[in-house]
């Protein structure tokens, strides 16, 4: 059965039926959050509005538990640290000016939970998502990296998860034509049942081509382009259909949908080339990627960042499934889609470029006067909201923080009591055991599955302390990136441990001959509702920010992933830190490793 017109929950209907019970809890909203939505709207939300608010106010999209802490990055960033920064926290990705007229943008993102549910597709779409973030800035994506964490190497679930994740990272990245220039593979028992898949992408553009997405200019068109919209990743929202229309079979049937998205790297590759041509031809005002919260996110963020309102005709969205409701269309997480704002005079040219690349493109709405985001469905209004309340003014929590009572015992448990090798034989055995251990052995099994050569600009990749790519073929200017984190150090002392992660990434970049310029992060932690985890988190953020200030380089962006736990056991706190450095001539890089030339002298620096 399909959603017929009279079944659609319109704004009018919502105003007339204030007491209708809504499944907001099933959608993850708390009582007071739901109350606030009613206050904002002056009525109950429609199904479609409820779907939008619930996904945009989720931890993942709203940063409601982390916001108060992350603001410390801003407070500790001095004007001097910002000297190379063209865009920072709050944009899709941070951007730095690296010289010779080049701007480089980089960011990391997590795709942990989806990769546990379906390792291949979860990891693949993780790469796809971060690449679209970089693309949305107007940059050509140039390389990827993948910090990974798994349970013990011999645990049965690791055998299920690891090969799939590695194949997914490779399958997607290789097919996109992005060299993989580094990453991490770390095993620890706390990641069993909760692997971490963090993906980093770096891209470059000419400084003057930086595009920040916003919907401005009344009458400008909103174009949706890329893949069709299907029922991907809609798990939660399906309760709307079933609960409010209990007779609707398709509704209850869909409740069981797995929230798994399947990636199509070919479509994304074509989308990249299409977007870059659109930027080059100057026919877009701005582009926004469709990430976790799909159209809900793209429309509200575009409208919220612009100076007008927006009207979207939802029935124009090209669909892959039949009978999708407005709420489902708004919440769909179908991959490989982008939204653009285009001046009316450029729409024809826009469609022409999309046709050249065989990319489906549809005008779905326009920028309007006023300040409302209005979404209609076959002429009926299903959403009428102030976009900022969806995208930027979500709830903010000051979660309780408590240093765990177990912390002192953890710190007191020093390694002094562990047996030590007493003889040369034992020392030899220990060394062999060490270098054969999963956390230290060769990563070749992983890295061999990744193309590190494509595009012909990879100067350093595995095995190397940091990856390095050439940005400018004329001048040889390039960038180096390293990601690091030792979760065991962070667990012992989150403040210092995070600084150690920063210091390691910083050293790795410096050791190649590049000058560190900027920092990104991917903060993977347990549940924010656990005061001990929140303590780890706040300490880690403080440590990173203070460390950055001391080193004089800014945090330009990042990502927070909470609720990484199996049962009540949280993962090791894992604030992965990425440092980007600039080198004016990549031919002068220092490769990793000894023995490239005879007679090298080995020096130890520091204490």
């Amino acid at each position, binding site marked *: 059965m399909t959603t017929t017109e009279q079944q659609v929950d319109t704004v009018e209907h919502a105003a007339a039926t204030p007491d209708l019970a809504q499944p907001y809890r099933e959608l993850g909203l708390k009582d007071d959050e739901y109350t606030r939505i009613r206050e904002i709207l002056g009525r109950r939300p429609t199904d479609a509005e409820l779907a939008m608010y619930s996904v945009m106010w989720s931890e993942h999209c709203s940063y409601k538990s982390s916001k108060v802490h992350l603001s410390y990055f801003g407070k500790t960033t001095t004007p001097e640290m910002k000297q190379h920064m063209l865009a920072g926290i709050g944009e899709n990705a941070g951007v730095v000016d690296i010289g010779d007229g080049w701007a480089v943008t980089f960011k990391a993102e997590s795709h942990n939970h989806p990769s546990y549910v379906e390792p291949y597709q979860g990891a693949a779409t993780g790469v796809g998502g971060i690449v679209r973030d970089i693309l949305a800035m107007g940059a050509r994506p140039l390389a990827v990296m993948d910090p990974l964490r798994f349970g013990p190497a011999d645990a049965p679930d690791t055998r299920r998860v690891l090969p799939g994740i590695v*194949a997914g990272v*490779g*399958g997607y990245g*290789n*097919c*996109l*034509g992005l060299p993989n220039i580094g990453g991490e593979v770390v095993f620890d028992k706390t990641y069993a049942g909760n692997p971490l898949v963090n993906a980093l992408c770096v891209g470059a553009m000419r400084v003057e081509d930086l595009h920040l997405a916003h919907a401005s200019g009344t009458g400008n068109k909103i174009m949706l382009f890329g893949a069709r919209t299907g029922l991907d990743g809609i798990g939660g929202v399906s309760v709307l259909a079933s609960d409010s229309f209990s007779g609707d079979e398709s509704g209850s049937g869909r409740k069981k949908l797995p929230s798994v998205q399947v990636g*199509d*790297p*070919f*479509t994304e*590759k*074509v989308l990249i080339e299409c977007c870059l041509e659109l930027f080059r031809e100057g026919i877009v005002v701005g582009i926004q990627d469709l990430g976790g919260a799909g159209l809900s996110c793209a429309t509200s963020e575009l409208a919220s960042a612009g100076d007008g309102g927006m009207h979207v005709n939802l029935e124009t969205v090209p669909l892959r499934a039949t009978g999708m409701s407005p709420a489902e269309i708004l919440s769909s997480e179908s991959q490989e889609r982008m939204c653009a704002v285009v001046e009316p005079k450029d729409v024809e040219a826009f469609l022409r470029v999309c046709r050249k*690349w*065989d990319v489906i493109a549809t005008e779905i709405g326009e920028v309007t006067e006023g300040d409302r985001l209005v979404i209609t469905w076959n002429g009926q209004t299903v959403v009428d909201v102030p976009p900022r309340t969806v995208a930027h003014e979500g709830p903010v929590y000051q979660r309780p923080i408590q240093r765990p009572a177990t912390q002192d015992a953890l710190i007191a448990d020093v390694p002094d009591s562990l047996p030590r090798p007493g003889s040369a034989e034992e020392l030899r055995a220990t060394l062999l055991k060490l270098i054969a251990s999963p956390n230290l052995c060769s990563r070749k099994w992983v*890295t*061999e*599955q*990744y*193309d*590190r*050569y*494509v*595009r*012909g*600009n*990879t*100067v350093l990749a595995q095995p190397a302390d940091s990856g390095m790519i*050439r940005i400018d*073929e004329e001048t040889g200017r390039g960038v180096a990136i390293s990601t690091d984190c030792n979760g065991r150090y962070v667990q012992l002392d989150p403040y210092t441990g995070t600084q150690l992660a920063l210091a390691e990434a910083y050293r790795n970049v410096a050791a190649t001959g590049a000058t560190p310029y900027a920092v990104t992060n991917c903060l993977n932690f347990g549940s924010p509702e656990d005061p001990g985890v929140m303590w780890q988190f706040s300490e880690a953020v403080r440590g990173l920010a203070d460390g950055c200030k001391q080193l004089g380089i800014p945090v330009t962006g990042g990502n927070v992933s909470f609720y990484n736990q199996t049962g009540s056991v949280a993962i090791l706190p894992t604030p992965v830190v990425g440092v980007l450095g600039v080198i004016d001539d*990549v*031919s002068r890089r220092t490769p990793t490793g000894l023995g490239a030339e005879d007679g090298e002298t080995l020096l130890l620096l520091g204490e």
Partner: protein
Amino acid sequence: MSPRIGVITFPGTLDDVDALRAVRYAEAEAVPLWHADADLRGVDAVVVPGGFSYGDYLRAGAIARFAPVMGEVVTAAAKGLPVLGICNGFQILCEAGLLPGALVRNAGLHFVCRDQWLRVENNTTAWTSRYEQGAEILVPLKSGEGRYVADKSTVDELEGEGRVVFRYVGGNPNGALDDIAGITSANGRIVGLMPHPEHAIEALTGPTDDGLGLFLSVLDSLVAA
């Protein structure tokens, strides 16, 4: 005027930028060709580069071989136009029937990216004259469907006529029959290989500059013609 070498871009082609660069490093004029145009723009030779044309979804190269530009390549190749297929390009040439056999999933079932030693088994083709017969070169290999297969009579014919151009040495990375990494057409003008010479044109970004020889060789053959 320097010779003009075309490089085809299909949707999903990835190594076109590298092939164009390799052509420039060899000091020829690099000419981008577009899959949808039935037009070779008067080039003197064509490179079909690597990547995942059309996502390689059905079979590697299966969809690309029907592109309008490929019709032109087939016609021109019949008249002796030098054609080089690298990786996905090799797969496309096989699917198009310009080279015999097929490339299938690696025996190890994984994508493999590594620096691979190759032996030059035939230095009389349009693309290998700069190499010494039997020379060993180190170039990147990166493919998931790189295992060369053909029926026995085809392989016998290739071996008998010296049409195996490159052979893997130091280990067969994908289970290819007879360690075959690259082959040529009967007239030696068309060459296809799985490894990537265009990624080995300078020591800075590749393991060696051993791959440049293919691009220099074809220039010799064009000047000689």
